[in-house]
């Protein structure tokens, strides 16, 4: 029997290798063409359907008595308020492949402790930050960014074990109570200086982290997971600021046969990766990596690795979910306006999946945004802010600038340098070239069509580059012509004129200088009829204008001009004539003063939020405005569509706010938003909110923002500050007024 087994072992190995290859190919095949962003599915867990008050009341019953009773009550209310806020933020994924896999790892980790397993709820958060956190109630949240960086399943298990320790040891509530003691100078800290108490706060938090590291390791030891892999988890944390892979960036990525970027914009050597693990952590909630490693070092060294594995659930599944996480990260970087990181992440992934449409769009969107930002100064110059009659205000203009390449470490530095070196015209040309080629490969994709249109427009309007500025003949063709002519000159005995010499000289200079690479960028593309037509269409009626010099105005002149503009635009954007609006869940926060400290009035905030929704509905009905809402306060377990919709809109809103006033740069005007517009029959999205504090100059801050989700434009942005209480009648009058201007048509 044994012999038979021995004989068949090579065959088994061969079969296993074959199976692995097949699985690997299947995983790769899944991403070859395209990728769809993650969505939640199934039914909503019961925790998502409870208000913070209900969640808290369950716990408040068990607080008991003692000196820290009030602190514990406050902690319960605050943690449940923020937990509920996070659960319904739209950033948490439910029943998606990542959550399912992570929960399988948790099952493996807590196989021996089913009681504890029942108390632990693990979710994935759509965030590119390399982070994880836990609530004492048993909720553990892992960011997508963390999954994208992990090397193996054992590392994931260790991260989970660390977070589970925080839950089991109730670190959050202990930290909260300790912080209150420290702030009040009570308990053992009585009489201590403010500085000493402040440092003690961080020390306490660091002690908790060390405890979680050590206890986490003990938990890993009880499983079959590799213990040595734990060290790798610390590497993940140490180098978390770097992209998930380090791949040398080649300029050929942007090039084609004719568009050749000059070597001068390629950084010869990149900065070495320093990643100091012994940084000053005195004012950090987490100890530095060196301290964390040393706290478990002895135990790691003594650990018996025999029979332990890096993967207990599935290696293939781990690699698949990591790949998904990396795809997600590309998009999340875009939402965070971290364009170069998004571009680099997509570049890494494109090496594996060169035909993936999603990745090509990430690159195109990133290039577009960087390009637009570079020419933004020109576009916004000479514009003044004004306040119109309807109290319309402007969101702050947030211009994107490429991060300083000096501060970037590793292989991605080359990309930062390259993008930094290209000027607005060059970048626009490169972006258009890349995007147009992507469009030709995927001619039906509306996003690529829209982006190429915008880049053509940008080329003509912002950078004043017209079809005539680009050569139709390649360098080689011109060179050949030049050679012929030079030969002709040499062959003839006639004296070369001064002007032909100049022309020849100019031609040669033109060919040999790298600075003029844009001239030949579209040689290939100008052979394409569609490219020529669309470029001509963008340039139609446009003439080259002399660049205006920026006027230097005195303070008085500037003020006078602003007043003049304000007068002219008094009624601009006052009446919008909108007939239907989709309302996002409103924001409401009430604070109260407890022992001189401003604290959130958790329950009342939640109740007021529900009331504000009612006010919105009432005012909309009164004005005959079509009212739709994405209300997560009244979700039922089968409302997954509404939950996903809220998630899409939250993403959109996050990106919108990241852009400030720069509407041209919105990139998430994607298919899902279009579907949403079709589904609800409106392209207008409104968000309202009230912040009410007990004391202070602006006791009430009310805001109302109306977006056009298709164009990304802010149609109305209104803020009001009052010193009075947030009575229902006052808030009603604010909401009604905001909606009045939304509904009324200009001619009424």
């Amino acid at each position, binding site marked *: 029997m044994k012999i038979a087994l021995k004989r068949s072992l090579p065959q088994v190995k061969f079969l296993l290798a074959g199976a692995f290859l097949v699985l690997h190919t299947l995983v790769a095949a899944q991403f070859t063409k395209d990728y769809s962003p993650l969505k939640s599915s199934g039914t909503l867990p019961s925790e998502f359907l409870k208000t913070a008050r209900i969640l808290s009341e369950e716990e408040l019953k068990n607080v008991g008595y003692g000196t820290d009773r009030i602190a514990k009550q406050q902690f319960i209310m605050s943690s449940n308020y923020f937990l509920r806020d996070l659960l319904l933020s739209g950033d948490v994924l439910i029943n998606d492949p990542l959550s399912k896999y992570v929960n399988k790892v948790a099952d493996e980790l807590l196989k021996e402790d089913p009681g504890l397993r029942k108390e632990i709820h693990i979710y994935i958060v759509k965030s590119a930050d390399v982070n994880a956190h836990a609530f004492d109630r048993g909720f553990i949240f892992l960011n997508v960014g963390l999954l994208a960086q992990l090397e193996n399943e054992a590392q994931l298990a260790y991260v989970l074990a660390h977070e589970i320790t925080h839950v089991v040891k109730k670190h959050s509530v202990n930290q909260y109570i300790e912080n209150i003691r420290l702030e009040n100078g009570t308990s053992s800290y009585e009489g201590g200086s403010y500085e000493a108490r402040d440092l003690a706060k961080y020390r306490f938090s660091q002690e908790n982290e060390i405890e979680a590291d050590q206890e986490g390791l003990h938990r890993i030891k009880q499983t079959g997971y590799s213990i040595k892999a734990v060290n790798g988890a610390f590497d993940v944390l140490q180098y978390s600021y770097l992209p998930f892979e380090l791949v040398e960036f080649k300029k050929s990525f942007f090039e084609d046969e004719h568009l050749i970027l000059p070597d001068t914009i390629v950084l010869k050597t990149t900065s070495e990766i320093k990643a100091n693990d012994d940084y000053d952590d005195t004012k950090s909630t987490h100890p530095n990596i060196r301290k964390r490693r040393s706290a478990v070092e002895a135990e790691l060294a003594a650990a018996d690795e025999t029979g332990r594995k890096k993967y207990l659930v599935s290696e293939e599944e781990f690699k698949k979910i990591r790949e998904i996480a990396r795809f997600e990260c590309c998009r999340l970087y875009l939402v965070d306006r971290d364009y170069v990181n998004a571009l680099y992440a997509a570049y890494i992934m494109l090496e594996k999946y060169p035909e993936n449409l999603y990745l090509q769009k990430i690159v195109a969107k990133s290039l577009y945004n960087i390009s637009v930002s570079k020419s933004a100064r020109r576009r916004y110059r000479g514009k003044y802010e004004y306040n119109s009659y309807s109290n319309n205000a402007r969101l702050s203009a947030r211009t994107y600038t490429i991060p300083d390449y000096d501060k970037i470490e590793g292989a991605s530095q080359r990309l930062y340098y390259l993008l930094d070196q290209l000027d607005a015209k060059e970048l626009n040309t490169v972006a258009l070239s890349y995007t147009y080629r992507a469009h030709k490969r995927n001619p039906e994709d509306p996003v690529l069509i829209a982006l190429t249109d915008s880049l053509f427009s940008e080329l003509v309007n912002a950078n004043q580059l017209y079809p005539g500025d680009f050569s139709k003949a390649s360098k080689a063709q011109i060179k050949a012509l030049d050679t012929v002519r030079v030969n002709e000159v040499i062959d003839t005995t006639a004296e070369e004129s001064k002007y032909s010499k100049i022309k020849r000289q100019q031609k040669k200079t033109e060919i040999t200088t790298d600075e003029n690479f844009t001239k030949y960028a579209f040689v290939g593309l100008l052979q394409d009829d569609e490219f020529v037509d669309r470029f001509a269409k963008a340039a139609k009626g446009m003439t080259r204008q002399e660049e205006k010099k920026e006027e230097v105005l005195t303070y008085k002149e500037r003020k006078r001009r602003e007043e003049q503009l304000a007068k002219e635009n008094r009624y601009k954007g*006052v*009446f919008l004539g909108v007939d239907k609006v989709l309302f996002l869940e409103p924001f409401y926060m009430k604070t109260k003063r407890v022992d001189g400290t401003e604290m959130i009035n958790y329950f009342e905030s939640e109740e007021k939020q529900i009331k504000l929704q009612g006010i919105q509905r*009432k*005012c909309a009905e*009164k*004005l005959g405005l079509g009212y739709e809402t994405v209300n997560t306060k009244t979700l039922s377990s089968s409302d997954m569509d509404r939950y996903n919709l809220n998630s899409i809109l939250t993403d959109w809103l996050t990106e919108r706010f990241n852009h400030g006033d720069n509407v041209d740069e919105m990139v998430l005007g994607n298919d899902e938003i279009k579907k949403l517009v079709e589904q609800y029959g409106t392209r207008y999205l409104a968000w309202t909110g009230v912040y009410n504090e007990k004391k202070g100059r602006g006791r009430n801050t009310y805001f109302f923002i109306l977006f056009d989700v298709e164009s990304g434009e802010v149609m109305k942005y209104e803020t*009001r*500050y*009052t010193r*009075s209480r947030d*009575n229902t*009648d*006052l808030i*009603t*009058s*604010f909401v*009604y*007024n905001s909606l*009045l*201007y939304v509904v*009324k048509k200009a001619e*009424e």
Partner: protein
Amino acid sequence: MRSRLAILIFFCSLAAYGQQQVPGYMGKRFTVGYSASVSPNLIGQVQNNSGIPVLTNALNVSYVRKKNKEWCFSLRYSSRTILTVIPETAGKTVEDKYQSVDYCIGSRRYNKSKFAPLGNYGKWEFMLSSGWVNYESYQAPSASGGTLSTYSGGHMTMDGWGGSYGRGVQRIIDDKFTLDFGIRAGFMFIRGDGYVNQREANIVSTVRHVINWSPIVNAHVGVGFLAF
């Protein structure tokens, strides 16, 4: 009276003409209400009742004309007892009742951040007053105990004008009803040239003394409803 009504109608038309895209409260800009105000009696009152404040009843109509401004029209009625010196009696006094109807037009300006008719406001007001006294006949006794002279009873009217400034708060309850409270201070001048005999001359003098020199200081509470 007709001319006063004409003035009122003129201002109403002006308000309607000046109608703009103003929100009012939930689209309602026209408020009808009642208010009662009390002002202290300080000068020239009946000695025994000098502490009793004067009650004024008013019917109010207001119309939101701009985002935080509204026109206010009021019809006020008040009644107070005055002590009039009887001529030829060496200072002997008699109680008479001075009643008046005031026609008021004013403008309320609410805080900049709020929308009329809601919130804290300041209010300027112009008033036209129409007052009257119905006095009884009186026989002035002579030193010997007989009748020196006889004053017949009668009715006399007095006109006046004035202005006031007040501050207050208006709240809206259940999207329908208004609750208004505040304080006001002002002045009033009574014309007094229409008397026919000394008895009436004394009445005019007393009324002018009471009204002109006692500042209009009052506190008011009002209720109303948002009509349309």
